[in-house]
């Protein structure tokens, strides 16, 4: 096991010294007060997510006061690795929607791509501005040792969580200003500006102004990431629109304003492909902008991320990302993939069935930490249940070894204890490729737990990158 704060059992790593002193001085009373203050703050600003639970209308994610710290050199490696991956994923998308070289080179079997629902046929032969399909890539990482990181999954559609990254920092600076005097923490509050610059750098060909009009398209207040949508549009100073605010006329997309129609150049969409255009995708969709795909394909508007970008973060495609990096960039992958068995291959399936109690089994289309089996932590009966599910539908599952996620010091009932964490940094791909100077650290608050998802008792932490 690897604890990010400790060099060895009793030696604290240098960059955690300040935090350790700070922790030693903190009394239970202060901890309680600060926890209450953080909770009130999060409730007041409304950074909540809706749940299906009957008891609470809205929940907030538990926030841990102890920051997670990366040194400059640790982060530099991550930065290179994540940007490399984001470039390869975009190159992959450009390839499979055009020549399909990676298939011709027999690196990825074609049925893994063309038969997928997330492969968007209407994108074939079209190249979006700068050939960027996924301008915001969220990479989920875990750390298992000093110098060992694994990518758990890629998020190429509309990764969320960046509002937590920013708000966690905001509350930390408000509650513990002294910490920021004694530690040189790289600021992250320019992220929204960088995001806007990225979007503006992706204006469509028919846009003839140097300041394209960008909007954020949200499904509406019932969406669990709605706070993030309004937060980001506010920080970027752009309109947050719903699809009913937009309409197509002639070659362009417009929004309805009190002044009359206003042309829109770039849509940062936070809705799924299916709901973009009822003429092109789901004809039964009541949300969506009829005709937007025509405008998009003829260069009247850009849609970020591009429809069909989701194929790149498919769990079956994940296996091939290291190959992609070599194929498109001619580089060695900086970040490692987790070894993955795809159960649709007979050999893999047999291996998985024989070793169920040592493996983590995930649904190919699952998310949120649901529908998965953590073999070493599961009872015999749930293992047997998964064995039946797997045999019935091997295509629906992949399996991975259980990674020993790193521990981060966490306040549990006013005591510092180690809890497992992961990390999602956000990579922006526009005129420049750049990584956020921080990310969202999720922490499994339950003792011994490997599940960091907020829907299952996960919390969040502020994530620091120390300046050089």
């Amino acid at each position: 096991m690897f604890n990010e704060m400790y060099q060895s059992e009793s030696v604290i790593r240098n960059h955690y010294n300040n935090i350790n002193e700070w922790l030693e001085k903190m009394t239970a009373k202060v901890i309680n007060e600060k926890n209450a203050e953080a909770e009130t703050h999060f409730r007041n600003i409304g950074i909540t997510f809706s749940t299906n639970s009957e008891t609470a209308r809205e929940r907030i994610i538990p926030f841990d006061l102890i920051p997670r710290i990366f040194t400059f050199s640790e982060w530099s490696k991550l930065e290179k690795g994540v940007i490399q991956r984001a470039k390869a994923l975009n190159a992959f998308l450009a390839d499979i929607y055009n020549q399909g070289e990676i298939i011709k080179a027999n690196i990825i079997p074609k049925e893994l791509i063309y038969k997928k629902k997330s492969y968007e046929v209407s994108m074939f032969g079209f190249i979006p501005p700068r050939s960027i399909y996924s301008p915001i890539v969220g990479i989920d990482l875990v750390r298992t040792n000093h110098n060992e990181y694994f990518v758990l999954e890629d998020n190429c559609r509309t990764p969320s969580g960046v509002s937590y990254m920013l708000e966690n920092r905001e509350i930390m600076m408000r509650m513990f200003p002294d910490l920021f005097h004694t530690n040189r923490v790289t600021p992250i509050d320019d992220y929204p500006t960088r995001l806007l610059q990225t979007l503006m750098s992706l204006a469509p060909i028919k846009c003839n102004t140097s300041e394209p009009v960008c909007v954020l398209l949200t499904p509406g207040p019932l969406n669990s990431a709605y706070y993030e949508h309004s937060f980001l549009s506010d920080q970027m100073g752009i309109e947050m629109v719903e699809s009913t605010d937009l309409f197509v006329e002639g070659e362009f997309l417009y929004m309805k304003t009190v002044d009359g129609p206003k042309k829109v150049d770039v849509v940062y969409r936070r809705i799924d492909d299916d709901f973009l255009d009822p003429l092109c995708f789901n004809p039964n969709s009541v949300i969506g902008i009829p005709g937007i795909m025509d405008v998009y394909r003829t260069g009247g508007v850009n849609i970020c991320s591009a429809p069909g970008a989701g194929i790149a973060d498919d769990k079956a495609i994940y296996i091939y990302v290291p190959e992609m990096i070599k194929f498109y960039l001619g580089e060695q992958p900086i970040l490692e993939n987790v070894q993955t068995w795809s159960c649709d291959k007979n050999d893999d399936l047999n291996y998985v069935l024989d070793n169920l109690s040592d493996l983590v089994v995930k649904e190919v289309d699952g998310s949120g930490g649901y529908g998965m089996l953590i073999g070493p932590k599961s009872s015999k009966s749930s293992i047997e249940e998964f064995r039946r599910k797997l045999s019935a539908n091997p295509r629906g599952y992949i399996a991975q070894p259980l990674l020993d996620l790193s521990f981060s010091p966490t306040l549990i009932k006013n005591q510092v204890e180690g809890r497992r964490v992961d990390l999602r940094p956000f990579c922006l791909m526009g005129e420049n490729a750049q990584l956020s100077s921080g990310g969202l650290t999720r922490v499994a608050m339950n003792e011994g737990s490997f599940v960091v998802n907020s829907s299952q008792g996960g919390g969040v932490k502020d994530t620091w990158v120390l300046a050089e």
Partner: protein
Amino acid sequence: MLSRTAEYLYWISRYMERAETNARLLDVGYRMSLFPNPNGYNNEWESVLAAAGAIQGYKNKYNIIEQKKVEDYLFFDEDNPSSVFNCILNARSNALVVRTSFTPESWLAINKTYQEILKLKNNNFDASDLPNLTEWTIEQVNLFRGSLSSLLRNDGYNFLYLGLFVERADNSARLLDVKYFVLLPKPQYIGGNIDNMQWSILLRSLSSFNAFRWAYDGNVTSTKIADFLVLNSDCPRSLSFCIQNIVKHLTNLTCSPEKVNKIYNTLKDLNTKIQEEKIESIVDFGLHEFVTQFINKISSVDSDIQMEFFN
């Protein structure tokens, strides 16, 4: 500004204003229930329901009219679309959508109100708590209004205030009407002591009693009170004041001058009339008839605003 944003801002103000009116109405009922009634029958709660436009909904739910039930229906009941609870809930879900179009303080004011009313709703309350609930509501609405003072004076600001004054014009008119039409169905009471006493309660519930005293000397008479609440443009709840402000915020809009003009033309006559009219001639004409016309006019202004700007 997005049409939908303008619409939501307009409705946030309307809901907040309506929450206040309903809380004040409950206070009217509460005060009247403490006085002996000429009929020996407590009909004040029925009048309060009528004034809130909630009588049908209430009767669908309950067979008898009693204080506790009326209070619950008007304050907390989620089945009543205009209950204080629902007004705050609606204002808050609209605010969630347009929080980026007003100040963080305005969002906080509404969101905190929402958090607190969720707690209040879970506590069992007692009839004697009612004045506290009313006071709490007024305080919360004032917090929201105060937060608007730091807003940029743009169209969003004007839509917020259009909503406020359209709602208030309608509410004030309805309160007046209830006073004449419902509270005193029998003409012989008009001008009597009970009549004046009920007028005074109305003034108090509009927190205008002291203001009235400052504005008028001598006896409290129904004519003076009617003048105060209809024509006196110094009184922030009078019909005259509301109309003036609707005109002001409408003509301050910088978007779509032709739409503004169109609506202004339909309002112009009413505005001129109410500035020049004498209370005696309104009473001769019939206050109820006057108020009914007024309510209809406001309602058509409201639908013009919605059609021209929000569609």
